[in-house]
């Protein structure tokens, strides 16, 4: 007869895997991995009184009027254009490469790291919508405008620092932002002039 060896029986842990599986599945289902993304915008501060709003005076050449009607058609400074042309148009406007008198005026500005540059820091892109414009069209327009700025900033960053804007140091990014400040007028359905 074989001798029976008496040992303390081990705890049966084979179901731990099942329990943790259930927990895992619960979290898998409830989890929303969607990292929230979006276009970040800054609204202008509220007007102190009705008058102060009208006082903001911007020269005509410094304004790029983007108007969207309720059918979703775009009009930029009097021309009908498609959404795909908007980015180029905005880039040309912000950059003013040939110092054209119809595009925003340039001012000499001393920017750290970049030195003296002529920048169009007075420009404003004003987006005007109709109450009936669909939000999607408005968003696509905003997206194109931000794309124009991002492309300009990337071009400048590559030319000056040899890398894209996102890879630059904080000081370099600030310098580039000083060169191409983002000025898209928000809110105010009829008023252009507010910054960003």
């Amino acid at each position, binding site marked *: 007869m074989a001798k029976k060896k008496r040992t303390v029986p081990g705890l049966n842990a084979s179901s731990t895997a099942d329990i943790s599986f259930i927990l*895992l599945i619960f979290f898998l289902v409830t989890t929303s991995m969607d990292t*929230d*993304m*979006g*276009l*970040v915008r800054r609204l202008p501060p509220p007007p102190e009184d009705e008058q102060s709003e009208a006082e903001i005076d911007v020269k005509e050449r410094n304004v790029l009027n983007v108007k969207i009607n309720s059918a979703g058609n775009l009009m930029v400074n009097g021309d009908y254009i498609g959404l795909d042309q908007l980015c180029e148009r905005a880039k040309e406007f912000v950059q003013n490469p040939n110092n054209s008198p119809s595009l925003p005026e340039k001012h000499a500005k001393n920017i750290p790291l970049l030195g003296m540059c002529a920048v169009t820091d007075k420009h404003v892109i004003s987006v005007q919508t109709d109450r009936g414009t*669909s939000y999607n069209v*408005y968003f696509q327009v905003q997206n194109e405008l931000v794309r124009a700025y991002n492309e300009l900033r990337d071009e400048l960053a590559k030319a000056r620092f040899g890398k894209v804007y996102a890879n630059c140091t904080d000081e370099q990014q600030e310098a580039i932002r000083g060169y191409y400040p983002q000025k898209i007028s928000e809110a105010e359905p009829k008023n252009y002039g507010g910054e960003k």
Partner: protein
Amino acid sequence: MPEMNTSSLPDLIFTILFFFMIVTTMREVTLKVKFTVPAGTELEKLEKKSAVSFIYVGPPTDQLRATMGSGTRIQLNDRFAEPAEIMDFVAQERASMSDQAAQQISLKVDQKTKMGIVTDIKQVLRKSWALKINYSASKRN
């Protein structure tokens, strides 16, 4: 044939479990409006989730359509609201935040919404000094 040793399986599963427990963000409100956010290319990630409040705009969900109609509605927390109520909502949210200057409003707006209501919301947000906003969107290539 020897059985495979599965004693480390629970540990493995636990590791995955902990990963999901950490990354999970439970939605604290039940959505009463349905929306499809527009798609964009130049998006930024939402930083500082604790300082973000959400405003949902869109038509009521199918279950609520019978009572609420199919017009565009605004949802704040768990209820429908009028644009004017956003001011209180913003103040309330701000009071419960530790870093009040970083307050950010994320607008989750259905892409078919008309701009009129969005403009109204933005005007109220301006008046309540909630100037940092974010148009929520999905990534497009």
